[in-house]
């Protein structure tokens, strides 16, 4: 027996019968090897980001291939330009408008679909169709449909005396039309998240409320909404972040016009960097936009944490 005990391999001594013990250095390396893919991915993200930041410190442009160091000059120039503030205002108006309408409509659609019925089940499948269309295609499609003289929208409105609307020809009309296309594409996304939330809510609080004779409005306001809110907020965060970064829908629909009425930050950055070839200046616009999106997201995510705690209390 003592012999048997002595034959038990001990780590680090390499005394296994036919089995070689893993050397210590390899065992200590293993955790690092496991995170190599993540590190490579992070590097793949950080390298272009760092390169972009580096470029913003210069006045690199096609007309100036050997640029001078300007420090934060590009950022100072952006922040003192009325054009930037105009674009920031348009971007925020677009993001708030789109996210708000999509949230209200998405939740409403989810509430309707939650009542299980054969029609609801069919609608659920149809609902996701806009999500399967690339936003730029959706925008081109809507551009044709909103065309005042040959577009189908005015044709449908004509019997009601509402034909001839110049959808994208006025500043307000262009912004509202762009938001409408965004709403058409992304409301199903909010609805699907809200519907998933609705279906995961516990039944007991609702049963208790029914026993107590609570009405629909009371139940919705005091039970459904507080418990559903974390799900909705996740959708809001996604949609708000995405809308702040909008490019495709607006570019395909109005190119930022008429005038500068739909000139969001992404389009301005694109024009500066690609069309006008002021690379450093264009990238600086992108970095400013990134900072705005990052800060807004941080605030919303913190708020989400608080809301989740509150929802958990309601469930208890």
């Amino acid at each position, binding site marked *: 027996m003592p012999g048997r005990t002595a034959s038990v391999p001990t780590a680090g001594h390499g005394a296994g019968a036919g089995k070689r013990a893993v050397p210590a250095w390899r065992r200590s390396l293993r955790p690092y090897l496991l995170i190599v893919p993540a590190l490579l991915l992070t590097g793949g993200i950080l390298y272009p980001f760092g390169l972009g930041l580096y470029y913003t410190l210069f006045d690199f442009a096609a007309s100036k291939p050997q640029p001078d160091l300007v420090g934060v000059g590009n950022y100072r120039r952006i922040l003192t330009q009325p054009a930037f503030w105009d674009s920031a205002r348009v971007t925020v108006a677009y993001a708030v408008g789109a996210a708000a309408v999509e949230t209200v409509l998405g939740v409403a659609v989810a509430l309707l679909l939650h009542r299980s019925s054969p029609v609801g089940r069919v609608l659920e499948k149809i609902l996701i169709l806009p999500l399967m269309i690339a936003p730029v295609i959706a925008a081109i499609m809507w551009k044709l449909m909103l065309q005042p*003289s040959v577009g189908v929208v005015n044709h449908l409105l004509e019997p009601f005396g509402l034909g001839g609307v110049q959808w994208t020809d006025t500043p307000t009309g262009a912004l509202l039309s762009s938001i409408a296309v965004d709403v058409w594409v992304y409301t199903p996304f909010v609805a699907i998240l809200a519907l998933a939330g609705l279906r995961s809510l516990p039944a007991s609080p609702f049963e208790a409320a029914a026993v107590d004779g609570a009405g629909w409005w009371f139940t919705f306001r005091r039970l459904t909404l507080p418990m559903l809110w974390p799900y909705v907020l996740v959708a809001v965060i996604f949609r708000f972040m995405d809308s702040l970064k909008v490019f495709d829908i607006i570019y395909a629909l109005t190119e930022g016009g*008429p005038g500068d009425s739909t000139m969001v930050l992404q389009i301005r950055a694109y024009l500066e960097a690609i069309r006008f070839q002021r690379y450093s200046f264009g990238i600086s616009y992108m970095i400013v936009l990134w900072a705005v999106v990052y800060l807004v997201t941080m605030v919303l995510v913190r708020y989400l944490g608080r809301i989740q705690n509150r929802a958990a209390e309601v469930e208890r």
Partner: protein
Amino acid sequence: MDMHAHDRRRFLAIGAATAASATPLLTACGAGFGGGRAAGDGSAADDVTGPFDWKRAKGRTVKALLNKHPYTDALIADLKAFTEKTGIRVEYDVFPEDNYFDKLTVDLSSGRASYDVFMLGAYMVWQYGPPGWLEDLGPWMRNSSATGAEWDQEDFFPGLLSADQWSLEAGAPLGRGGQYALPWGWETNVVAYNTEVFGKLGLKPAETFDELREIAGAITRRAPGAGFDGMYGVAVRGSRSWATIHPGFMTMYARNGLKDFTVEGGKVKPAMNSPEAVAFTRDWAEMVQKGGPPSWTSYTWYQCSSDLGAKKAGMLFDADTAAYFQAVKGASPASGKIAFHPGPKGPGGSLATNMWIWSLGMNARSRNKSAAWLFLQWATGKEHLRKGAIEHNHIDPVRKSVGQEAAYKDKMGAIPGFIETFETVVDQTRIQFTPQEQFFDATTSWAAALQEIYGGKNASSVLNGLAGDLASKVG
């Protein structure tokens, strides 16, 4: 808590150190600024010696970037003849105009030589020339070993070769300095009109700008009642793009004796806010409001052209090609009913006309310059252009000899007024813009300003704002 704060401080310190070390690291990783002037002091053309030979680069492949256009179709249809003549293969990519120039710009600015040759407009020389992306073709043209005698330089219409020649100095006139592209196909901007609606309403083509505005409004008001459902007066471009400015707008602007910029002591100053320019721009916007297309702010040449063809527009003030492709037999509901006219004269009878030149350029970083030059020489030569003009739709040839061909005249003579209009404006047709690097920024902003004026904003304040903004960019 302390530990947490300590960790954060440490993290920030590491972050700062990383940022400080990023500059040399990024440079080491190849993040330095590329795209400097590619051309050296000498030209690759100097390496070509001996007698001229079409087969000199036999077995090579030329890569071409092309824009979707009827001229391109004519070129592609004839590529076999080029390969037979030279033994050079041509590989090409064709992109629609909406994103063609973005593709070209990104490709050239990347410093790669993905394409040896490409289509570009003469205005693009002002943007692509200064960074050194375009090969100066002058040495190739002057080298008799590289260029065949039949490539007759004198045969180009006057002003076309010089329109692609520039000294790369803002405000300097064209026709001096490097030859950065070769003219291949061009377009004059004139008025095309629907003869049917003009006949029914008893109208005659406008001879002045005031008449044009009046006729445009009259068609919008009266044509629908005369059996032309939904017809409006005049199709002109309106999208928020540089392309809105250069056709009809710039032509009428120039006929009124107006300038985009003035050059004083080598300084380029915006002039689109002069009182005369403000008055003209206001009138143009008003013409569009009363007689232009609905949804004008999204109008590109595609919509303008198809509206004329679909009998939605009574007139088109744009490139002659845009109307021609609707006018040919069987091309559109309006074909056979479209005629051409030089358009309104300016005060003093000016028919100054802005032009667009589809040109062919060579990538300065091409590793295949000898073969690329043979391709450019062939594509702008008499043989291909004659075939393109007569057998295909490469109308508006850049060569006088093709324009004088009986077969060409017979073909184009079938379109009422086309040849007469061309001959009337040709001598006054030239690039009416002031050459400067910020051309695309300036004209895109100008188009945005035009949209704002169309939307009801005060023309004077909008154009003053535009001029102020541009002054700091181009000055």
